[in-house]
């Protein structure tokens, strides 16, 4: 009996630390392949590029924690970039434009939460329809044209500015967001309740937690992070166009979240894990791009990694004979 338990523990450890090991190996591999990969400016480059994805993955973590995979994250992100650019071009003061955009993101999160929790539509379908709606709104707003922002304004500092020589401002925003997310889920009641609801819904209900409200809040937070990512990207590119950031977009975030999950016990979602996973994805993307592998192939590699990580996460989990990979209710 005892030996069997140890074997499971060993496998658990292998998976958890294995991901870190693979991460290091991957970095070494890329370093060997290409000189420019190792330059410190490339590191900050990678970090900078990872900011939008990391923020979105952070948001996705919240929605997945309460049991729903938010399919609209790409759309909210894209729309936020568009709206923010549009508002600035229309003359709104930058601060106001940013705040309005965040509010829009929060609103879409609320919309998702309402559909998934109150109307009880399965989260994946509810957020899918939101995605459609947002893509539609986006197209109507931009009429297919790109919105350009004057790159001389303060706004560009957000995405492209540096503090000192190396520290990108957007990376600072990311760090602040991570700190906020971590602090929120460990030290504020509502944040703790989000985890509790996700880990054991019944226990949370019995403890008197209003789980429906908590779930909606999780969706709202997700929307907010996606909006933030969109704002940063708009600043980075000095404008935005209605890209069809649909389903293809969520691959990066989903991979990030699941890689993160595999680093902790029994494959559970966590904020820190997601961030590490996002870094992993960013490094991977950057490195593969250096090797001049095409974009679509990179996506394929990520897809493969996703499936492998999923399989690893599922090892050792207790499964009833009627558990078959269905979508959660």
């Amino acid at each position, binding site marked *: 009996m005892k030996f069997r338990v140890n074997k499971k523990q060993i496998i658990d450890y292998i998976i958890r630390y294995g991901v870190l090991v693979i991460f290091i190996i991957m970095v070494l591999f890329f370093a060997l392949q290409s000189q420019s990969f190792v330059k410190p400016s490339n590191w900050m480059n990678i970090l900078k590029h990872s900011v939008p994805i990391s923020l979105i993955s952070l948001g996705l973590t919240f929605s997945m924690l309460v049991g729903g995979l938010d399919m609209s994250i790409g759309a909210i992100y894209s729309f936020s970039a568009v709206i923010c650019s549009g508002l600035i071009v229309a003359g709104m003061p930058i601060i106001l434009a940013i705040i309005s955009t965040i509010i829009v993101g929060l609103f879409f999160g609320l919309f998702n939460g309402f559909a998934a929790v109150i109307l009880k539509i399965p989260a994946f379908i509810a957020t899918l329809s939101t995605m459609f709606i947002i893509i539609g709104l986006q197209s109507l707003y931009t009429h297919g044209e790109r919105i350009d922002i004057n790159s001389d304004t303060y706004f560009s500092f957000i995405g492209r500015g540096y503090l000192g020589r190396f520290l990108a401002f957007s990376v600072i925003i990311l760090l602040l967001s991570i700190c906020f997310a971590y602090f929120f889920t*460990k*030290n*504020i*009641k509502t944040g*703790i309740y989000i*985890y*509790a609801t996700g*880990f*054991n819904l*019944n*226990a*949370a209900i*019995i*403890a*008197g*937690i209003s789980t429906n409200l908590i779930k909606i809040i999780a969706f709202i937070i997700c929307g907010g992070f996606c909006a933030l990512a969109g704002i940063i990207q708009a600043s980075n590119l000095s404008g935005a166009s209605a890209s069809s950031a649909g389903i293809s977009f969520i691959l990066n975030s989903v991979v990030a979240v699941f890689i993160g999950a595999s680093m902790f*016990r*029994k494959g*559970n979602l966590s904020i820190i894990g997601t961030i590490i996973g996002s870094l992993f994805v960013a490094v991977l993307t950057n490195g593969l791009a250096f090797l001049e592998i095409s974009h679509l192939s990179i996506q394929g590699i990520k897809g493969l990694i996703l499936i492998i990580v999923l399989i690893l996460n599922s090892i050792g989990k207790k499964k009833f*004979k009627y558990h078959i990979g269905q979508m959660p209710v």
Partner: protein
Amino acid sequence: MKTNDNKTSTSTNLLNNILVEIKGVTKKFPGVIALKDVNFSVKKSEVHALIGENGSGKSTLIKTLTGLYYPVDNGKFYWEGKEIIIKKPKVAQDIGISCIYQERQLIPFFNITSNIFLGREIVKNHIIDKRTMYKNTQELLKLVALECNPNDSIHDLNLNQKLKVEIAKGLAKNPKLLILDEPTAILSYKEVEDLFNIIKELTTKGISIIYVSHRLDEIYKIADRVSILRDGKMIGTYNIFEVTKEQIVQKMTGGKKIIQKVPKFKNKENPILHVSNISKNNLLKGISFKLFEGEILGIAGLVGSGSEEVGNIIFGIEEINEDGKIHLYNKELKINSTSKALKNKIALLPKDRREDGIFLNMSVGNNITLANLKVVSKGGFINHFLERRIVKKFIDLLLIKTSGLLQRVKYLSGGNQQKVVIAKWLNSNAKVFILIEPTHGIDVGAKSEIFNLIQKLAIEGKSIIIISSEIEELVKNCNRILVMYKGKIVTEFNQKDATIEKVLLYSMGGNED
């Protein structure tokens, strides 16, 4: 000697050291009176056992104390001499009543502290005050003798430790009355000893315990007094050493005489099923028995006896242990799935038929034929005419009230839904039927219908195992009864030797010390 509390007044309450008292409480539900004019009191620092069969009103009594059942139809509640009204769970908690149920309510990847304070976190300026919570948890853990760090993750604890955390959680609200509902159902001998030590500690600190259990040996070890409920009435409260186990059982059953309805069973030659050496962790220890053709075999077992697990293992819902073997007519079976069990003509009617046996959004007809679609189909295609004929046959046979075989089952009444599930299994041409708590949730009229059906099946040569905690029904309707207690078969009764009292005594561990 009975302690008669009928005329106790406030001052006498305090004199006799009574913590909580309920007087003349009656609670009715549609169709049944759960509690009839019940008087019950618990002294300070005592361990008070509460015993009663299914349907005796035990859980109703507890729920009125914890505020889950409000209002009562009659009666008053007193706490330390003063009258109180327990409107909802929060009121009960604030007064000082806490209850630990059987369902584990812990969050796996949180630590002990977070679990204990879930929903009631201590905050300073909206931020969790971890230091205070840590200290409080430390003290609570000392109370329950759990040598763990408050920051340890629940995930790393074993079952016994988890139980202690649950108790700590219950103690976190500083209760004066702690109710334990079947706490030892899955504990090992050593863990039960551990629990008893905690209970004794708690009573020295002035906390009273209501200990709901059916395990006589444990009750005699830990309780000071015992109260016995039967059919919603409080039969009496006794000091534990003034009453014997047999007397307790006798009071639980009221000395009912049963007219056995089952015809005598003769054919003891063909064991259709031979089960040997089935074990499962703490739950089952080396279960072996035979089942004969045309026999109605009862397995009597109360909560935690492991009786249900036996059925689940034979039907393939749970894994069978390596040494365990199931033989059908001398052929060894490797049952690792329900479809294999069904192929070998073994059928199981689950306990919670509404959740696990029925498809609410599907039609009555579809539900009934589901376990045996081969018969109504040809080459994979379902013959709807044939299906209709067979379904009609069962609707008539079981008198299922429905507007037609196309009606969705969710529109049927509870009892009729049960009948649909039974029809499904009758239609499955199985030869061995395992029924788990077959009359659970069924009204009286339908109960006898079901047993008539069971007898008909037996006459046709089918074999039936009834796994139940309704002792009376087993004694009435079975040819043979195996009694299980704490994972073992403790004795076997033939139909002529079985009486309710004897069977109940053994299923409560009456023959153990």
